[in-house]
Each structure stands twice: as C-alpha cells, then as structure tokens.
C-alpha cells in the first residue's frame, strides 16, 4: 500500500518544486490556460516547449549514461485518441489541467478545488468501468511502447536538435515581430488575473 519512505520524500520534494514553478509561471490560472486555447496568450506553449527541449536533452543523456530508463506509455490508439478528445473538451471548459488545477487550489481558486473533487469522480468512473472500457482502449490498434526515433530508425539527438531549432526559431520570430515581453509588459499588470 505504501512505497518506501525515500520514494515518498522524493515525490513530495519534486512536487513542491513543480507546484512552485507552475504557480510562478502563471499556468495555474484559468485565464492563461483558456487564453492559450483562444490563441491569445502563448504562456502555456512557451513553458511546455522549453520544458520538453531542456528535459529531453538531460533525460536522453541520463539514458545514454545508463543512469535512467525511458518510461513510454503504449500507443493504444483507441485509448489515446478517445482519451485526448475527452481531455481536450474537459480542459477547455474547466480551464485547468490536472496538475495546474492542484496548483490552482494552492493559489486559492475555488473552482479548481471543486474540479479536483470532479477529477476524483472521473478517476472513480474510469476504475469502475475499467473492464468494459478495454475493447474501446485496445480495439483500434496497438503500436506499443514506441518512440519517434525508434519508429523512424533515426537518432533521438536528431529529433531533440530539431525541436530545439524549432523552439529557438519561434523565440527569435516572436522577438522580431514585436510581441515580445518588452512590448507586452503593459498588458500584464501585477494581479490583473487575480
């Protein structure tokens, strides 16, 4: 029922830093998440994109050094695609994702607190319906626990390098187009979204 105490402490420590960063990054706010989906506020994409490029470099380096292993979720097409549609509709209406709603609770947001109870209900529905859901999850095909480099027989560093270049390109294009933080600072007064 309980994992070892060192795992529990490590999990808590990682979570505290993650929650702190989500709150400082403004992504625990309804307006920022919905603003991203309305294509008006690019905070979510900037944060996630940077995390993915930086994270990929270190994690693939750790794997190369045999210091960690990959943990890939299987590409069960039914589960992933139907799950993604439910997730997308739910997240756009809710205005938080699972992690940022927990962080939103820490910020004091009442609708996020009610949503966390809703998430427990959603998880309970999933567990209760687990046997009945299996044909749906597995019925459309299973590509297995596969990565993009494995699927294309290429080096992961090619993909990571490509992602880094796309990110850098988007960053430079934003600066040059005059939508950078200098120009936008006036639009983001402190506490404007509180």
């Amino acid at each position: 029922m309980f994992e070892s105490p060192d795992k529990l402490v490590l999990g808590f420590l990682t979570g505290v830093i993650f929650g702190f960063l989500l709150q400082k990054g403004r992504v625990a706010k309804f307006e920022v998440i919905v603003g991203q989906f309305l294509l008006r506020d690019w905070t979510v994409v900037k944060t996630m994109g940077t995390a993915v490029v930086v994270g990929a470099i270190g994690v693939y380096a750790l794997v190369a050094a045999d210091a960690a292993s990959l943990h890939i979720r299987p590409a069960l097409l039914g589960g992933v695609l139907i799950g993604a549609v439910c997730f997308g509709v739910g997240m756009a209406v809710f205005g938080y994702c699972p992690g940022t709603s927990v962080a939103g609770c820490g910020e004091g947001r009442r609708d996020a607190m009610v949503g966390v109870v809703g998430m427990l209900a959603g998880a309970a529905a999933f567990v209760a319906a687990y046997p009945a859901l299996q044909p749906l999850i597995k019925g459309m095909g299973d590509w297995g626990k596969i990565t993009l480099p494995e699927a294309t027989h290429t080096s992961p560093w090619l993909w990571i390098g490509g992602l880094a270049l796309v990110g850098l390109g988007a960053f430079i294009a934003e600066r040059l187009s005059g939508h950078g933080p200098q120009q936008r600072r006036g639009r983001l007064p402190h506490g404007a979204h509180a």
Partner: protein
Amino acid sequence: MANPFVQRYWSPYIVGALIGVLSWFAFATADKPIGITTAFEHTAALSGKAAVPQFEQKNEYFAAKQAEGNSPKIGWEWMLVVGVFVGALLSAGLSGDRTRLWVPPLWASRFGPSKAKRLIAAFLSAALMMFGARLAQGCTSGHGISGTLQLAVSSWMFISVAFGVAIVTALLMYGRQGAEHV
C-alpha cells in the same frame, strides 16, 4: 535586485527550463516521469477497495495492474500531487498572489456571474478530463511534458489531438469576441 521568490511572475522560458531540469531530477533520483493523474486513479481504486467488499475480486482492474507491476498505492506519484499543492501555496503566499476567486472573470463575461453554474461546469469538465487522461494513460504532465520529452509516439499523438480539440472547444465557447477579454 528583487528576491525572485516574492515576485509574482517568472518568465515562461525560465519556468519551462527549470521544469525540464526537474524532470532530469525525477528520472535520476526516482526513475519516474512526472505525472499527476496516476495518483487520482490509485486513490479512486484504493477507496473503492475500502468501501465495497469484493470490489477487488469483481473488477479485473486490480489483477491487470498487479500484472503490470503498478498496483494502486500511496507512492511517489501520490506525494508528488500533495507537493504540487504545497509548492503552489508557498509560491502564491510568498508573492501575495493568493485569491478566493469562485468565478474567473473571462468565464463570467460569457456565462454570467453564477457560482453554481461555474462550479457544476468545473466538476463535470474536470471529471471528463480525468476520465480522458486515464483512457490515454497521461495528462498535460505525463504525456504533454514527460512523454513528449521522451519522444513517445503516444504522447505526441495525445497532446496534438487534446490541444487541437481544446482550441476548437474554446473558440466555440467564447468566440473571437470573447477572446478580446483575455
């Protein structure tokens, strides 16, 4: 120079880079990808087991998870979620960014100030979101960050479809006009 811990906002690039480094830390220390929704699934499964006799025997979920070596438990993932709450509380407290908001202004501008309406919508949409996350075995963290940085096919598929659907949903809900309020 101002103490960064009491500042309300950090640059998304700084926050993103630090989340990336944090994922190195999670892989290196616990050999785990950062993810949120597994803990919710485990909580629901453990509660079901505690509340309903024979639930474990009747539902093949428990046998299937045991075979995967991923039986529901209070573990690293569970403490991660607790930590996220504490970390956000700390950050918001230090910077005075705490709120008691019930209805976000953007929501109110489109659907009115009713608390009941917002809370019912939040409950149902969050339930649907979690249901979808468990169907796909990941969320914005588990697939969107941890999975995509491992270059997983399932994760790039999930986040492209999920964000595509979310964009269509948000534009249908608020329209171009609603977008002016952001």
